[in-house]
């Protein structure tokens, strides 16, 4: 059985055991999230700006701005720590949040809103999703 990709050590740090291929895959995901937050034309941009209160015509601009800043700063922190062997708790949480944002954005822009649609999607896309799920599953075990 393959070893864990992420492991919480006794000193509280999270050890990252990804090889170069794994880190390259994650780098691409993090870069997409950061680009989506900054570029309104990015295909993920709308999914990052979902309504907070759908019954209202407009969300509170301060809440929207807080969300935008936090998603971007999580993605930035994740990119800055991409080559680290050990992450502290906040860095690990930024990785988890950014990966999860990427996973859900991928599902939303591809219309994968049900189990049936997910199973019927293109194999390459399903492969990308399964890879992100695996990263998330293992990283979540550290929290």
């Amino acid at each position, binding site marked *: 059985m393959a070893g864990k990709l992420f492991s919480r050590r006794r000193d509280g740090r999270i050890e990252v055991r990804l090889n170069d291929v794994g880190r390259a895959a994650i780098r691409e995901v993090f870069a997409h999230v950061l680009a989506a937050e900054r570029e309104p034309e990015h295909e993920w941009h709308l999914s990052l700006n979902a309504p907070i*209160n759908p*019954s209202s015509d407009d969300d*509170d601009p301060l*809440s929207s701005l807080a969300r935008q800043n936090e998603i971007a700063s999580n993605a930035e922190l994740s990119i800055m720590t991409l080559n680290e062997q050990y992450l502290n708790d906040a860095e690990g949480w930024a990785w*988890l*949040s950014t*990966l999860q944002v990427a996973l859900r954005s*991928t599902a939303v822009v591809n219309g994968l809103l049900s189990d049936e649609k997910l199973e019927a999607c293109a194999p390459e896309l399903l492969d990308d999703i399964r890879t992100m799920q695996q990263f998330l599953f293992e990283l*979540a*075990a550290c929290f």
Partner: protein
Amino acid sequence: MPSAQPLRFSSTESDVESEVAVITERPWNVIVWNDPVTPMTVVVVIFKRIFGYSNNKCTDLMLTVHHEGRAVVWSGQRERAESYCVKLQVAGLQATVERDA
């Protein structure tokens, strides 16, 4: 033909009861919606991190989301509800706020 009966009863002061209406503001709910891609353990971890709930409560809420399509994960003041909603969205979950019915 209109009835000859009076349309309302006459009353005296002693018959009138006064009522004090207590209007309580309806709380705002934070709703988390199901999606087919998010691993269950990730949902539990996010609830635990954001709300500090017990493992059991987080698991129950996650299962409610999974089986019923949505769950109310927090209720209270509007500002706090929106703040929690933003935290959930930042963590990548689909969350909204709505006023309690």
